[in-house]
């Protein structure tokens, strides 16, 4: 049996019928000529299913904040057909057993492809390499390794990690944060942190680690991926490294493209995130870096936290904000509408590039005949008002409450199966 996405505009181009069968795009024909069960997609922009390199699903261990199932629902509604589940769970995903558990939970949910990320070091402790080979060879087929939340700060250990993953075509995704420069840090260091009396988180704490790591990656000829780049200086360092031919990729989070440190004046920890919100000039540099390809991907760093961990004073609160269900809207508002990124550019930054970096064969295909049918249909002109309780995530810690954001994901096909139709989960 075939499905027809009727009148969809791939990458915003001319409308066509996209015919899907057996999990593949089997035909692209003029509107009205596709044969099969019709999904009305007139005027909607067609994109390949989005791929997130940086998602916290919290399971196992913090099922009060999120589970693989609830996170997968949020992912589907946000247009993601693949997410990478970060390793900082309890227990940590540092063994084949844990990554296989997360992978199986994802398969059972079936709403999106869940790719576990393996820890670089045992227990994220930064001292001993985790069994990277076992995770790579497990059913989960892990290719991305990260101690995210913590920085692999020991230079020797970072070097060995970069070398070791070459055997599995893996990549180290570094959380670049020099720990000694960020002890007790609460927000971006600048004039504002001084006034608010919140311990500063200097840009150099991020930039110095990135500078070291790109040189290490060059020295051992391996792949480095830089998580959640947040400063203008980091963009400069990565641009320099790419200019030298170093095999480095980088991601930026939606919130770092739109929110600034001024929000900390409310002392509302809904705006507390790691790395911290920076300045307007950082935002400008990040957008420019994303536009010119210095930054390869947009990754959500979706970080659910139970309400009590945000309903408190700033210092006591957890770092992180939700992202899966708002990411595309933020990208439309900050990159597409200002003309910094075309729809093809969005497809590259949010689907093809992350799939390449994560070595996910089934994802990130162009919308062409023969491709795996991971397809989303987006209404870019629709505007929605964000309310925390309307989100599918188990947590409510979105910083966008009350904001009017453009773009709604109307339909999502994951491997040919509709997971979202008319903005609703199909089951």
């Amino acid at each position, binding site marked *: 049996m075939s499905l027809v996405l009727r009148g969809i505009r791939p990458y915003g181009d001319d409308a066509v019928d996209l015919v899907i069968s057996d999990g593949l795009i089997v035909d692209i024909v003029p509107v009205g000529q596709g044969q099969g069960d019709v999904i009305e997609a007139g005027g909607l922009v067609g994109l390949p299913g989005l791929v997130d390199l940086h998602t916290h699903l919290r399971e196992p261990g913090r099922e009060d904040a999120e589970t693989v199932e609830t996170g997968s629902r949020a992912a589907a509604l946000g247009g993601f057909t693949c997410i990478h589940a970060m390793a900082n769970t309890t227990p940590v995903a540092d063994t084949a057993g844990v990554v296989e558990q997360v992978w199986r939970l994802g398969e059972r949910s079936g709403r999106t492809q869940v790719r576990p990320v393996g820890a670089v070091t045992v227990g994220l402790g930064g001292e001993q390499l985790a069994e990277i080979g076992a995770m790579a060879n497990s059913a989960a087929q892990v290719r991305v390794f990260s101690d995210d939340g913590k920085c692999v700060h020991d230079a020797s250990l970072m070097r060995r990690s970069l070398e070791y993953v070459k055997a599995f075509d893996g990549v180290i995704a570094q959380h670049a944060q020099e720990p000694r420069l960020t002890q007790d840090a609460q927000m971006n260091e600048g*004039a504002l942190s001084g*006034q608010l*009396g*919140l311990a500063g988180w200097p840009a150099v704490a991020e930039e110095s680690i990135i500078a070291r790591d790109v040189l290490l990656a060059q020295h051992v000829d391996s792949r480095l991926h830089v998580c959640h780049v947040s400063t203008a200086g980091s963009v400069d360092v990565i641009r320099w490294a790419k200019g030298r031919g170093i095999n480095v990729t980088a991601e930026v989070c939606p919130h770092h493209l739109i929110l600034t440190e001024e929000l900390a004046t409310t002392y509302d920890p809904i705006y507390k995130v790691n790395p911290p919100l920076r300045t307007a000039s950082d935002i400008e540099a990040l957008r420019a870096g994303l536009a010119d390809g210095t930054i390869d991907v947009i990754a959500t760093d979706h970080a659910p936290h139970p309400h*009590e961990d945000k309903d408190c*004073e700033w210092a*006591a609160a957890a770092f992180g904000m939700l992202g899966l269900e708002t990411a595309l809207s933020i990208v439309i508002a900050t990159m597409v509408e200002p003309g910094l990124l075309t729809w093809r550019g969005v497809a590259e930054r949010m689907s093809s590039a992350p799939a390449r970096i994560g070595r996910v064969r089934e994802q990130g295909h162009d919308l062409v005949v023969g491709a795996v049918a991971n397809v989303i249909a987006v209404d870019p002109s629709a505007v929605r008002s964000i309310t925390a309780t309307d989100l599918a995530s188990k947590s409510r810690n979105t910083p966008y409450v009350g904001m009017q954001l453009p773009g709604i994901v109307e339909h999502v096909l994951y491997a040919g199966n509709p997971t979202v139709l008319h903005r609703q989960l199909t089951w």
Partner: protein
Amino acid sequence: MKHLLSTADLSLEDAVLILDTAAEMALLTDREVKKLPTLRGRTVVNLFFEDSTRTRISFEVAAKRLSADVINFAAKGSSISKGESLKDTALTLQAMGADAVVVRHPSSGAPYRLAHADWIDATVINAGDGTHEHPTQALLDAYTLRAHLAGPTGSLRGVRVAIVGDVLHSRVARSNVHLLQTLGAKVTLVAPPTLLPIGVEQWGCAVSYDFDEVLADQDAVMMLRVQGERMNQAFFPSTLEYSRLYGLDTPRMATMGTNSIVLHPGPMNRGMEISADVADDPRSLMVEQVTNGVHVRMAVLYLLLGGMKESAS
């Protein structure tokens, strides 16, 4: 104005009103019965998440002289140390009918959260939050400066004040910079570069690394407490070197103008930022600052719990 969270929120008129009211409260001290019926039936809670006996007692005396009922709530640890959360504590106080909550907290912004998070209706008075602000300390400092340098109702316009020491970690410094500049004083911050916040040049005051260079020009010097432990975090090489460069001792004091005065928010580290002889000098006004603290806190409680409305109408 409902809360007192930061001296940055005080206009010149607000600040002068508080200081003038404090001067009226001071007259009460000369009476045999040191008590006004103004806040009878009102409940003031001293909510202290951090030990500070002197500030707590000062607020307690102030509230009692205004006939308020005072509850001292020493919260054992904040939610950081997994005690009761700030929110639950707030809900408890709300249920008990607190009219004002005087809060001391180790986290910057905790009083702001208390005032704005829809947990309680009470007036919130910041009694020191982390490394952010300590507004009533700045008000009592301004009151003391005024009494000595400008007369009881005089202006601090043009008065030169140096604030010396660990500005980076000092809530007293932040509150004083805002308030003294609002009152027209010329403030100079003096510290090693490591103990000045990034961006301090945007605070609108002068900054110097050289205590001796600025000392002779000051009408008042405010010494900040410096914790010896900061040495271990490399903010300065040793307590001795700190003391040599930034401590106020007798030879240094001799270079000050003869009418200039010395303040310290307490508690002092004698021998560290201030020598024992200087601390006991008649031009050092620490004991008077404590007395003035009660007057200023009476004024703040009086104005925030109703008096401000009356004076406005």
